[in-house]
């Protein structure tokens, strides 16, 4: 098989992996911000932020890897998507700026501390929403002619993209609440447990809605799932998703197994991600750009891939190490006041 055939496939996998890593890792940090209004007081919010303070920066770096990986491997798709979704991307980036600096500013702010509590909450909420909108607009497809985007400033606005925007907000909130079950005890953990069950329900409904809607957006999705007996091959995906949701519902209130809800939520997200990819493949920008059409030349994809193969395991290695350094519960009255 020539390089030009399989390199784009490998790169689709690499970028998919990067995006999934970003979604689950920054997802739970953004979820903490979305859940910030449920904190009893400033001290509880300190606690929530402290569970992520040493690792948020590394988590956010996966977004940069996704963006830059797209530029390197699929420059045409990078150029098309970002300029077409100009406004959602802008608003997501600005929200991320406020969310990020809130971590550093809040503990140093003095009388303006409240401001950065709000920046954390609203920044996280808006980042999540706009990421969902970007996802929805991408899956739905955008008006492209001869490789150029021909829609307007607001063509991403649709019922479907609003639905995915809301879905991602609740999905991240679920990641955040199960992370808190893992990392905290006492009142805050109880709050997180109480929030988890309704969130499981809401996220399952959103997943169902998106899954039901997708085949009607695009006939290819319909064919992929429901022709040639494909459904039987693919049915483990929705079946496992459903099982995971049930397991989550039960695990949410089970005392003593504090890691299980978070792990199940990770599976939940991974399955949802697989479902989406099955709908999109082999397009990067449905329905106009396949991964082969959007690809950089093999000289670039190959060079960068060599770097990924050598360096990504190293990155994953020290990332795991840093999570181990900061393992365990964060207790009230302690904190990272650096």
């Amino acid at each position, binding site marked *: 098989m020539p390089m030009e055939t399989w390199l784009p496939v490998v790169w689709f996998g690499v970028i998919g992996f990067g995006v999934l890593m970003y979604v689950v890792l920054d997802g739970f940090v953004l979820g903490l911000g979305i859940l910030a209004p449920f904190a009893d007081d400033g001290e509880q919010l300190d606690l929530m932020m402290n569970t992520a303070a040493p690792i948020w920066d590394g988590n956010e770096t996966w977004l940069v890897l996704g963006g830059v990986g797209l530029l390197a491997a699929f420059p045409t798709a990078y150029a098309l998507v970002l300029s077409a979704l100009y406004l959602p991307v802008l608003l997501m980036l600005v929200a991320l700026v406020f969310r990020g600096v809130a971590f550093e500013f809040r503990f140093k702010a003095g009388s303006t501390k409240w401001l950065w509590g709000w920046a954390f909450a609203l920044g996280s909420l808006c980042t999540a929403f706009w990421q969902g909108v970007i996802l929805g607009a991408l899956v739905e497809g955008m008006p492209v002619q001869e490789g150029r985007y021909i829609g307007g400033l607001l063509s991403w606005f649709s019922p479907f993209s609003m639905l995915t925007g809301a879905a991602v907000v609740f999905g991240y909130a679920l990641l955040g609440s199960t992370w808190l079950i893992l990392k905290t005890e006492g009142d805050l953990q109880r709050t997180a447990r109480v929030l988890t069950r309704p969130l499981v329900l809401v996220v399952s409904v959103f997943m169902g809605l998106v899954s039901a809607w997708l085949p009607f957006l695009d006939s290819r999705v319909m064919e992929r799932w429901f022709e040639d007996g494909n459904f039987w091959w693919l049915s483990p995906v929705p079946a496992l998703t459903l099982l995971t949701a049930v397991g989550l519902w039960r695990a949410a209130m089970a005392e003593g197994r504090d890691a299980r809800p978070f792990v199940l939520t990770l599976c939940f997200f991974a399955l949802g991600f697989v479902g989406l990819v099955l709908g999109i493949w082999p397009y990067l920008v449905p329905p106009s750009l396949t991964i082969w059409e959007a690809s950089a030349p093999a*000289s670039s994809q190959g060079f960068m891939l060599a770097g990924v193969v050598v360096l990504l395991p190293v990155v994953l290695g020290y990332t795991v190490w840093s999570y181990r350094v900061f393992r365990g519960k964060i207790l009230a009255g302690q904190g990272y006041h650096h």
Partner: protein
Amino acid sequence: MDALLLSRIQFGFVVSFHVLFPAFTIGLSSWLAFLEYRWLRTRDAVWKDLYFFWLKIFAVSFGMGVVSGIVMSFQFGTNWSVFAERAGAVLGPLLGFEVLTAFFLEATFLGVMLFGWNRVPERLHFLSTCMVALGTVISTFWILSANSWMHTPQGYELVDGFFHVSSWREVIFNPSFPYRLVHMTLAAFLTTCFVIGGVAGWYLRKGEHVEPARRMLRLATIFALIVVPLQILAGDLHGLNTVKHQPLKVAAMEGHWEQLPEGEGMPLVLWAVPDQEKRTNHQQIAIPRLGGIILTHSWDGQIEALDSAPPDDLPPVAPVFYAFRLMVAIGIAMLALAVASGVRWRQGRLDSARGLHLAWKLMLPSGFVAILSGWFVTELGRQPWVIYGQLRTAEAVSQVGGASVALSLGIYILAYAVVFGFGSAYILRMLGRGPLPHEPEPETEGGERTPARPLSAADASLEEGAR
């Protein structure tokens, strides 16, 4: 509205804001590694107090650098999509290697550096500090390679207007890269050096934190005495390299409009008011022949003049010309201050030289100003090209309407004003407070039960400072 002009303003705005933070944290992370090393070697508490003090400043600056950097990595697509599409195969992998070799390294070890004091053995903590410092330098390597390639592109072939790489070695080690890398890295270290010296001068003027301030002032003096002359040399070599590859940029820096008759020699223009329209200088003050001697190292040498190119191929001369003079003036002032401090030190009067302390205090932001001026010189000086000689800036812009770009520019200005206004205020306040004896360590327990304690002393005093 003109989407091209607005996109240029927006890119200039976000990149100028962004560059200030890495420029500071590159040097600061090495400074922190030095402080921690001194503490481990001497067990002198002053070093440890200084470490924790500068660590807080570092955390805030680094955070602002990270968030403004994420904006940068998406700007190419949102506003410069034609550039991204055509050159992505070259620049994407360079930035990709930056993420894989530097960004993850910095971000992950930063967490341990900030919060791991009680969680990892002290040698491992020191290693984390070193990894963060190493990450900032590796990041400088890749980003300047990418930037230099846009100035002096090579190692590629054009396929339907798209840049395809034929040799990665030639792309990465393009002709202007070594010079730019050295010049920018030294600039970043000097920026930090003058902040440290400036803070020391400030404390000595106030009569506070005298012992740490004396140490910082001495270290800043030694560093500046070695590195400022090196930087002037590096700048000169970088300039000669630019004469070779981008002669019009140097002509704009020198205000050199007309080709002179053979044997006349090029003057060094000290001051003038360049007039792009009439293609000449007004109110010119110049030293005969010196320009040729500096740029060509010969008595009657001259470089290609601005009149050798059509008006459409010229950079905006006045901003390049002024920014260059500002950068050079700061370089000379840095050298003078370093030498004066060295002399006073030898006389044993460094601690009582009140005037010098004031000079250091006033020079605190000088590195930032010099970096921005240098940045304007090199980036405006290569206009109208975004990839020199190959792709014009005007062709590279996205097909996004002027109104959209005006809106985004407004949002960026507003958001950055709030975020970086507060951020700078917090940094200044922490600097004003200074290192406390027995600076409290960042607390890192969690997992084991330890008694609850109120906010640390550092935060408490900041609260008071805010009221």
